[in-house]
């Protein structure tokens, strides 16, 4: 209220304006350092970093996008997908820095046509590589028990297995330099605060045996210990004890700095000696983001706000359908021996369906999936059933598809007009009576098509009667 009162009328207007409500750009995705061969500056980024804007057609004709100056008509009026991202409203060169955002805008539209809800990653039970691929039931990211950000600082520890947002970093994702910088800047300055924090913890711990005893004997509970009364010697002794217990120390530090949870090393890592002899008596965490880090945005990334895909599609003739309509996917990379193929669905590259299914049958040769045929115009396509989608910790959308059932495929093709409707009786072609006159007969579209149905007519010697002459001469 105080802020609203101190703002001038113009300032209040500006705050409510559309230009000011454009969100600040988010940091771009990190480039794939490991595969420098595939680095491309013009390729579509894994996720959008700028707000996409559009304008009305009447304003677009004038170049009016609500920005500093009218944008060049040559580049902004020809597109059928008028979407822009504005990097700078006015640059030092006195131009508006913008580029087309149709890539992300269209991808969003296509994805929303799939009507897939975003699911939260599940705890990787086996710790194995392909565990997430199994068709275990998934939950939406919008479920109340996991989708919250406002947490009471006292309760942070209690819900650490369900949260996705943390104040502290995910240590496994930091480089050594980042880690050192973070230590110097954010951690060293909080030493005294941490000692106070530990004193509070120690006060609770010191009281625990007395409390337990009182409970056992049915006596009155002892009064709480004031943390200020704990001496430095007691605290140092407590610290020594903590250092002997990795798990407890990590819990204390993690709670104090609100660190994102880390998955402890697996037994195989320990056996291989990758940890340099560190103890492996760490407790595993149940947080689904412990394996690869918490997400950079809300786990839905704003790409879909659906909570479930459990609805029925209705067909006007066949009635309710068991499955959602399948989608056409383009084969981006065919399958080879043990290497999975890649498909393009709604603007996302997905892996070919896994598991025991029709397309993975050893004896079933799948010409679209197993062979690259450059002769097919637009690339080979096949029908797939989108199953679920999630956003990983780097912000990339991961779509999982299965094989489309042939019945569903047929229904979709019928609706698209690619197949004849079930039980459809073809209309009898009525022969139109000639409307009279030479032109109507000779140049009607139907007649012309009929005339050239078997290719253009080429005159021959027989037509001129020459053939008959040769016959008669023989």
């Amino acid at each position, binding site marked *: 209220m105080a802020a609203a009162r101190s703002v001038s009328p113009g300032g209040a207007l*500006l705050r409510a304006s559309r230009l000011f409500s454009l969100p600040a750009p988010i940091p771009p995705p990190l480039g794939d350092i490991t595969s420098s061969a595939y680095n491309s500056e013009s390729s579509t980024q894994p996720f959008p970093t700028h707000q996409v804007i559009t304008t009305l057609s009447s304003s677009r004709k004038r170049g009016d996008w609500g920005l500093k100056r009218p944008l060049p008509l040559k580049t902004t009026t020809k597109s059928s997908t008028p979407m822009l991202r504005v990097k700078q*409203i006015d640059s030092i060169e006195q131009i508006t820095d913008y580029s087309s955002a149709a890539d992300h805008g269209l991808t969003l539209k296509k994805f929303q046509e799939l009507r897939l809800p975003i699911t939260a990653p599940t705890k990787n039970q086996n710790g194995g590589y392909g565990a997430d691929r199994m068709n275990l039931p998934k939950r939406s990211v919008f479920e109340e028990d996991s989708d919250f950000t406002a947490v009471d600082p006292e309760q942070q520890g209690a819900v650490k297995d369900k949260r996705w947002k943390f104040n502290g970093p995910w240590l496994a994702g930091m480089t050594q330099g980042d880690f050192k910088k973070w230590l110097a800047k954010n951690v060293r300055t909080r030493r005294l605060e941490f000692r106070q924090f530990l004193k509070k913890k120690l006060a609770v711990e010191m009281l625990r045996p007395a409390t337990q005893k009182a409970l056992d004997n049915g006596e009155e509970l002892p009064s709480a210990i004031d943390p200020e009364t704990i001496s430095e010697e007691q605290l140092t002794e407590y610290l020594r004890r903590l250092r002997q217990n990795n798990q407890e120390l990590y819990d204390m530090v993690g709670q104090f700095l609100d660190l994102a949870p880390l998955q402890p090393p697996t037994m195989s890592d320990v056996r291989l000696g990758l940890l340099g002899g560190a103890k492996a008596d760490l407790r595993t965490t149940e947080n689904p983001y412990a394996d690869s880090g918490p997400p950079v945005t809300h786990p839905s990334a704003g790409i879909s706000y659906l909570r479930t895909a459990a609805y029925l599609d209705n067909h006007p003739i066949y009635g309710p359908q068991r499955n959602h309509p399948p989608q056409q996917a383009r084969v981006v990379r065919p399958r080879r021996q043990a290497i999975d193929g890649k498909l393009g669905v709604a603007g996302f590259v997905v892996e070919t369906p896994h598991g025991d299914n029709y397309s993975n049958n050893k004896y079933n040769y799948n010409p679209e999936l197993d062979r690259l045929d450059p002769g097919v115009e637009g690339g080979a396509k096949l029908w797939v059933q989108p199953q679920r989608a999630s956003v990983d910790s780097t912000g990339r959308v991961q779509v999982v598809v299965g094989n489309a059932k042939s019945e569903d495929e047929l229904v979709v093709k019928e609706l698209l007009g690619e197949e004849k409707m079930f039980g459809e009786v073809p209309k009898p072609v009525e022969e139109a009576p000639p409307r009279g006159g030479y032109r109507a007969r000779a140049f009607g579209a139907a007649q012309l098509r009929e005339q050239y149905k078997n290719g253009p007519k080429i005159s021959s010697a027989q037509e001129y009667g020459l053939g008959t002459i040769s016959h008669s001469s023989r």
Partner: protein
Amino acid sequence: MIIRNFAVRHGRRALAAPVPLSSLRALSTESTSMRTAVAEPSTSSPSPSAWSKTPAKADLDRIPENFHKFQDYQRQTQSLGSKVQLRYLPDEILKRPPTDATLEDLMAAQAHIGHNTSLWNPANARYIYGVRSGIHIISLETTAAHLRRAARVVEEVAYRAGLILFVGTRKGQTPIVVRAAELAGPTACHLFQKWTPGTITNRDQILAGGILQIVDENDRPLEGFESHLQERRPVVPDLVVCLNPMENYTMLHECGLANIPTIGIIDTDADPTWVTYQIPANDDSLRSAALIAMVLGKAGARGLQRRKDDAENGQVNWETPRDVQQYITVEMQRKAAEIQRARKEAEGEDGKPLREDPLDNETFRELLEPPHLR
């Protein structure tokens, strides 16, 4: 829908007509013969399906009747519901120019968007509200206040029949300056091409051969000034409104030399000392330039209307230029002397005037002393 209330709610209509087959199916619980699952398509299916049946002749005969019913229904219900209004038409600002610009108008016209912060002219600091996403934001209140002041200037100049020149030499500003000059009346002009350097300072050469007129308070040309117009210098504007001062420094400098007041849209990178009356606003946006030019043009129209109303009542608010005044005085004296001489010549022969005294004639006196000089 609650089924038990169905008859109460829709009783008369539902019971009057036979219940359609589709709602019967929805209400019944017994299984129908409708196929709900997709079966393998078999072309050998002999029974023609419902959707490919040819309609009966009775159905076809009812089509015109149904169509008329549909049209009646549409006619009855077309006044119902909300009316969708077009809130923004890009051309509207030129067709129906606003009298004043509110803060909302200015913001919608992008008048607050300044330049990159590195490009600023520190003299504009007093107009700048703050910095947002790398650009300076011009205070809307300042813009509105300065625009009102400039509108007052234009109005008073138009009221005194001053010559107003609207200048906008950027691409797309042509219709704006033309419309503003059209609004501000016969004493306003526009410029949408390059300013010829020296049009003010060297106007005797550059504007030589231009047509000059002496007009009365009703803008009607007056006769009898031919000899004066031959030796008169070309006119200069009495006020210059410049929509893009950055590209028109030469013109503004010449105006300064000739003591001509100027009004200019000052963006955060412009020098505010180039113009007399600054309007801090975005000069790159055509919408912003159009809004400001239309408000000024409309102010000119107001001044013109006031001047016309006064002229109808015989009131003249301008001062005749000193050289014109001097010419009129000299000419009057010359004519009076001529008349005196003619009278004396006529008296000299018989001591009696031959004809009536020309100075007694009302029309002649009026010609010598125009009402606005009395």
